[in-house]
C-alpha cells in the first residue's frame, strides 16, 4: 500500500533506479520511508523461465508481455527492446559489462563530435569498482587495456574461446569481455555457457532479483507494481507528487525527493507531461548500430569458451577515426545460433559469430513524440542511426579480416544487421549547460532540484560499449553526492 508522504519516491526498477536506491538506503535513517513504483509485474526467476519471458502483463501475470506494447513506432522503423517488470533491464540484459572507454566521456573535446559528458572516466572509476563489486563482475584484472582500474574484478575472467585466446596472445587490443555471470559459483550458480542469457537457466547472471534482495526487501521500502507513472506535479519549482495509474485508477504519492528511472522512452514522456518541456527533451533517442558476421578459421574454435561471449577487440574503440566516423567494438560471441556449426570435416567448431557494434550520436531527427492524451503511447521517430554510425559500422566491418590476419582466416560472411541492441539512450541528456541538457553531472534536473533522472536516458552519446554498468555506476555516484558523500 502506497499512502502518505515519502522521503524518496523512486520510479522504475532497472539499473539506474535500483543502484541509486541502494546507495540512498545507506544514508537514509532507519525511520525513512521510500516508495518504489514499477509499471510492470513482479516475476520471480522460475516464473520467467516457465513463461519464457522476462516480463508479464501486471493485470494478468500469466500472460507474457513485450516492449512493443509500450510505445509506437513508424512503419518500417527499427524496433526498441526493453523489459517492463520489477528489475527492469537487469532481468533481460545479457550480462556484458564493459566499462566505457575514457575517451567516450570527451567526444566534443577530443574529436569535435557529439557532446562531452559532464563527468569523466576518473570521476566514475571508484563507482565503477563499487558497481562491479555489487553485481559480481568476472573480468581479467591483469590486463585491462585503457580501462584503468583501482581495484581488481571481484570474480576471475571466463576462459576465452580458442580464437579469442589465440588473439589475446598476440594482440594487445584483444581483451576479456567483462561479464555479470558468475565464473566460479561464488555469488550465484556458476555459468554453464548455455548461451541463453536473457533467461539464464542457472540464474548465474546478475539480476535485481538475485543480486539486490537486500534492497528490494528493505523494511523502509514500499513497492507497488503495476503502477504506470504519468507525470509529476510541481510546486514552486519542486516535484511534490508523482501521478500514476494503477488498475484504471489515477492516484498520487508525494515525496521529498523523486528519482525518475523509468527508461529512455518513458522518462521524457513523464517529464513532458509534467510541464518540463525543453528543446532537448526526448530528442536524440539513440542506440548503437550493430551487425553480426561469421568468421571461419582454419585452426581455432570460436565456440569453446566458458560463457556466452568471452572476448572483445578494442582496436577501433578509440582513435582519430572518431573525427570522421563512429568507434566500434568487436564482441566475440561463443555461440553458433545465427549460422550453425561448420560443415567441413575437422573444422565443425572453427566458426565465430562476431558482433560488430558502432557508437551512435544524438540527432534531432530522432525523437520521442509525447501525445497530448496521457493515455496514448509515446511515438518514436527514428529514421536512421545517422551517417556517423553507419560509416563507423562499415569501416569496422571492412576491418574484420585485419583482426584475424595470420590466424588462418578462411571466410568472413556477409554482415547481418542486428535489429536492436536493447540499449535505449540519450533522451534526457546530462550536461553542464542547462540550455542543452536536462540534468547535470549529479543527475539532478537543472530546474527541479529535488528531481533526479537516472538510467541510460541521461547519456549524452551512445558509446559502443554496453551501457548498463555505466548507468549503475553513475547512479551510485549521484546518490552519494546527493548525501554529500561523493
Amino acid at each position, binding site marked *: 500500500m502506497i499512502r502518505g508522504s515519502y522521503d524518496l519516491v523512486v520510479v522504475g526498477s532497472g539499473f539506474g533506479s535500483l543502484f541509486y536506491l541502494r546507495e540512498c538506503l545507506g544514508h537514509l535513517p532507519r525511520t525513512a520511508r521510500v516508495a518504489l513504483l514499477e509499471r510492470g509485474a513482479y516475476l520471480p526467476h522460475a516464473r520467467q523461465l516457465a513463461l519464457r519471458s522476462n516480463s508479464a502483463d501486471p493485470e494478468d501475470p500469466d500472460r507474457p508481455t513485450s516492449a512493443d506494447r509500450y510505445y509506437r513506432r513508424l512503419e518500417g522503423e527499427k524496433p526498441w527492446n526493453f523489459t517492463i517488470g520489477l528489475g527492469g533491464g537487469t532481468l533481460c540484459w545479457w550480462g556484458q559489462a564493459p566499462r566505457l572507454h575514457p575517451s567516450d566521456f570527451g567526444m566534443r573535446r577530443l574529436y569535435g563530435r557529439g557532446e562531452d559528458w559532464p563527468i569523466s572516466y576518473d570521476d566514475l572509476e571508484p563507482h565503477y569498482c563499487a558497481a562491479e563489486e555489487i553485481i559480481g563482475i568476472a573480468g581479467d584484472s591483469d590486463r585491462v587495456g585503457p580501462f584503468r582500474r583501482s581495484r581488481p574484478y571481484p570474480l576471475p575472467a*571466463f*576462459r576465452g574461446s580458442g580464437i579469442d585466446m589465440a588473439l589475446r596472445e598476440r594482440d594487445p587490443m584483444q581483451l576479456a569481455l567483462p561479464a555479470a555471470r558468475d565464473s566460479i559459483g561464488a555469488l550465484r550458480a*556458476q*555459468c*554453464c*555457457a*548455455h*548461451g*541463453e542469457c536473457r533467461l539464464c537457466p542457472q540464474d548465474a547472471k546478475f539480476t535485481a532479483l538475485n543480486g539486490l534482495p537486500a534492497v528490494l526487501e528493505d523494511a523502509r521500502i514500499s513497492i507497488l507494481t503495476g503502477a504506470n507513472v504519468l507525470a509529476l506535479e510541481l510546486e514552486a519549482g519542486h516535484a511534490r507528487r508523482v501521478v500514476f495509474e494503477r488498475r484504471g485508477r489515477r492516484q498520487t504519492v508525494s515525496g521529498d525527493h523523486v528519482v525518475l528511472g523509468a527508461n529512455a522512452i518513458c522518462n521524457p514522456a513523464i517529464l513532458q507531461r509534467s510541464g518540463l518541456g525543453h528543446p532537448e527533451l526526448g530528442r536524440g533517442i539513440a542506440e548503437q548500430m550493430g551487425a553480426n558476421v561469421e568468421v571461419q578459421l582454419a585452426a581455432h*574454435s570460436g*565456440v*569453446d*569458451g*566458458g*560463457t556466452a561471449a568471452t572476448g572483445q577487440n578494442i582496436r577501433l574503440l578509440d582513435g582519430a577515426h572518431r573525427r570522421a566516423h563512429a568507434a566500434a567494438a568487436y564482441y566475440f560471441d*561463443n*555461440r*553458433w*545460433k545465427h*549460422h*550453425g*556449426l*561448420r*560443415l*567441413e*570435416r575437422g573444422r*565443425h*567448431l572453427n566458426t565465430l559469430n562476431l558482433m560488430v557494434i558502432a557508437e551512435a550520436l544524438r540527432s534531432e531527427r530522432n525523437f520521442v513524440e509525447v501525445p497530448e492524451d496521457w493515455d496514448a503511447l509515446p511515438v518514436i521517430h527514428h529514421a536512421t542511426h545517422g551517417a556517423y554510425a553507419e560509416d563507423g559500422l562499415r569501416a569496422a566491418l571492412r576491418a574484420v579480416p585485419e583482426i584475424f590476419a595470420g590466424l588462418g582466416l578462411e571466410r568472413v560472411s556477409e554482415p547481418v544487421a542486428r535489429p536492436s541492441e536493447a540499449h535505449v539512450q540519450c533522451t534526457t541528456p546530462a550536461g553542464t549547460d542547462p540550455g542543452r541538457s536536462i540534468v547535470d553531472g549529479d543527475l539532478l534536473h537543472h530546474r527541479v532540484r529535488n528531481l533526479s533522472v537516472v538510467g541510460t536516458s541521461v547519456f549524452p552519446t551512445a558509446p559502443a560499449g554496453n551501457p548498463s554498468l555505466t548507468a549503475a555506476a553513475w547512479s551510485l555516484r549521484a546518490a552519494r553526492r546527493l548525501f554529500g558523500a561523493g
Partner: protein
Amino acid sequence: MGRTTRRSFLTNGIGLVAAAAAAGVAGRYALTDIEAILEAIVRHHVGDDALARGAAAAFARDYAPMTASNWKLRSAVASGLYLLPLFRGALPAGDLARIERYDRRVVTDFLLSSSYDGRESGDPIDYLALETAPLCNPFARLR
C-alpha cells in the same frame, strides 16, 4: 558386390535426383525419403569414416518427425541434386546458400546429439540421443 537397397541408393546421393523429382510431383514427402536425405546429409558432411555404424541413420529416424513439415527441408529436398558435385555447380547461388544453411542446421543438430565432443581421438562419432535443449553448449570449456 553389395546389394543396392532403396536406402543405399538414396544415401549414396544418386537417388536424390529421383527423390526430389518424385517429391516435386507429389507435393509431399514420405517420411522414409526425408530420413534418407537427412542420413545422406550427415554422412556426406561428417564422413562415413568418422561415423559409428548406423549413427547417421539412427539420428535421421529420430530427427525426421521433427522436421517433416519444415519448409527448409522441402527446399533442400527439392534441390536434392546438390550432393552431386556436377549439379551443385549449376545451382543458383541463392539456392546453394539456402541449402548450406539447412545442411548446417542438420549437421549441428547431429553433432550436438552425438559423442562428437568428449570422445577419444579417433573414436567414431556415435549418435546418443536427440538434443533438444536450445543452445546448450557441450563444447564450452569452463576452466
